[in-house]
């Protein structure tokens, strides 16, 4: 570790947290309804009970724009970016495989099938959540069992192929659901939502789902020291005192659960879970105790920037999943350069 890396490690958290806070604040100004900086300051003052010269109508207008429309969307971007990146980093360490992510392992496809199925059949909110999680879980287990049949899960490529097979299966099942969906209402909604878009996350959804997602992220952070040991291989982790079976089950269930919730909020947003942990490792070394929280911050920042960009650059809104793929693919190709010397 070079000196600048040490310094980076020390101030990295702080700098990234500050960037995130700054971004959250600036993101409040992005959108069709223009808010000036003075108005924003006034609004904050009045919110804190201080005196300001905003009219009541203006204040209520700002309140609804900020709290009902923009803040939920910003929180959704932050929490989804963090969730997918942390899950990706956890999966990569646990499977000793830098090529996996919630997307690659089929979690996102499985979860989207589960959610679409629930929507088309008109299930209640609770059961849609449940089926999203269950099918996400089934997709990972399918990918894992395929890799177990042909090798003892040690071969990196076999696990990736298992994930691709599992993803394809659930995409096919999803197509069946779409095919039977009402082409005037349900079909466009499902299609657009699956492209990955934050515009579907209503404020009540965001508030309800972000708490379990945040808890999941925290659980994974507590397990990061065990992930370090697991990434040396199962037997070595056991000899170091890790109950590998228990830790793996918890990490798979939690990472799958929070990734599945992100699908309910915003559909399939691919590539983040794969590339963000790589960027984090490129900057901060391999220690998962550092990489997991850094991935959370980087993922949140990345998705927030992408969401703002997708609204500012064009006059219409592009689904964010498409943008993350377009930006993510070249980044991943660059990161692959490291594959030769290990990650």
């Amino acid at each position, binding site marked *: 570790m070079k000196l600048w890396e*040490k310094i980076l490690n020390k101030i990295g958290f702080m700098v990234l947290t500050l960037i995130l806070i700054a971004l959250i604040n600036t993101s409040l100004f992005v959108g069709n309804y223009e808010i000036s900086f003075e108005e924003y300051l006034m609004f904050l003052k009045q919110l804190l009970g201080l005196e300001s010269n905003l009219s009541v109508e203006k204040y209520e207008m700002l309140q609804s724009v900020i709290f009902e429309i923009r803040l939920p969307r910003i929180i959704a971007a932050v929490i989804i970016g963090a969730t997918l990146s942390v899950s990706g980093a956890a999966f990569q360490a646990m499977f000793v*495989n830098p090529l996996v992510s919630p997307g690659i392992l089929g979690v996102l496809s499985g979860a989207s099938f589960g959610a679409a199925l629930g929507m088309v059949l008109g299930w209640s909110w609770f059961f849609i959540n449940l089926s999203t999680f269950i099918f996400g879980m089934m997709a990972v287990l399918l990918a894992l069992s395929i890799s177990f049949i042909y090798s003892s899960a040690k071969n990196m490529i076999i696990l990736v192929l298992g994930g691709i097979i599992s993803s394809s299966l659930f995409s096919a099942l999803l197509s069946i659901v779409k095919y039977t969906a009402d082409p005037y209402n349900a079909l466009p909604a499902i299609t657009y939502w699956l492209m990955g878009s934050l515009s579907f996350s209503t404020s009540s959804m965001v508030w309800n789902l972000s708490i379990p997602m945040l808890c999941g992220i925290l659980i994974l952070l*507590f397990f990061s*020291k065990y992930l370090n040991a697991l990434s*040396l*291989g199962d*037997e070595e982790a056991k000899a170091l005192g890790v109950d*590998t079976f228990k830790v793996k089950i918890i990490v798979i269930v939690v990472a799958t659960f929070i990734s599945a919730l992100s699908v309910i909020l915003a559909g399939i947003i691919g590539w983040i879970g794969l590339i963000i942990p790589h960027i984090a*490792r490129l900057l901060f*070394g391999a220690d998962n105790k550092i990489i997991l929280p850094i991935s959370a911050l980087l993922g949140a920042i990345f998705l927030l920037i992408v969401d703002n960009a997708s609204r500012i650059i064009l006059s219409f809104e592009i689904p964010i999943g498409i943008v993350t793929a377009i930006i993510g693919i070249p980044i991943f190709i660059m990161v692959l350069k490291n594959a030769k010397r290990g990650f």
Partner: protein
Amino acid sequence: MKLIEAKNISFSYQDKPILHNVDFELYQGDVLSLVGQNGCGKTTLLKILLGIYKSTGSVKLLSKEITKYSRKELAKLISYVPQTHQIPFDYTVFDVVLMGRLAHIGLFSNYSLYDKNIAIKCLEKVGILHLKDNIYSQISGGERQLAFIARALTQESKIIFMDEPVTGLDYGNQLKLLKFLKELCVEGYTFVKTTHYPDHALYASNKVMMLKDGKVLDVGDINTKLTTHNIKELYDVDVEIISRKNGYKYCIPTL
């Protein structure tokens, strides 16, 4: 004091028998060398005694069945130095060594300054403190082996299992490592190590266990059991065992 007592261990891997009715005993202060051909079950035996593989028969550690221990409790009693291998992530040497403290910290705590100081002391002890911040996968094989030994010491268990600790090291480093292990014995550690070199067994251990085709060929005091006859049985080569005045014995092939 008897630390480990295993009786009637049999183990098969995918219907292929590896170990057959093996008994094993380990006393405090022993340095036991496990010798035998490739694939005779040395590493498997180590992993069974570590509780990583489950076998038939019974393995008792401090008179208690090994299956009754949690992984954490086991890690505090036995540490394991595996054969060096590639890690696909860029951990620093310090990261790797610090993992030896994993069994000593709780779910919600992190490595404390105390843990870090132990890791630093152990790095110093094996003589690679200067490599602390290097990337583990980029140091040499011998240095990696030393890092693993430092990790085992960091674990603060008094029993240490080593799987072919000198494999991959150059001639000089092999001997330095053996000398170092001998020094550690004086500090109250108990060792079990697998080795391919009768010379190394003679130099650094007091007991030997010879495995052939998954069965115990012979076991006991190194001087009486590691004989030309047994080595011929084990490897089908003729050797001569020479005693020097300094008390050490050497094994030389008669080609």
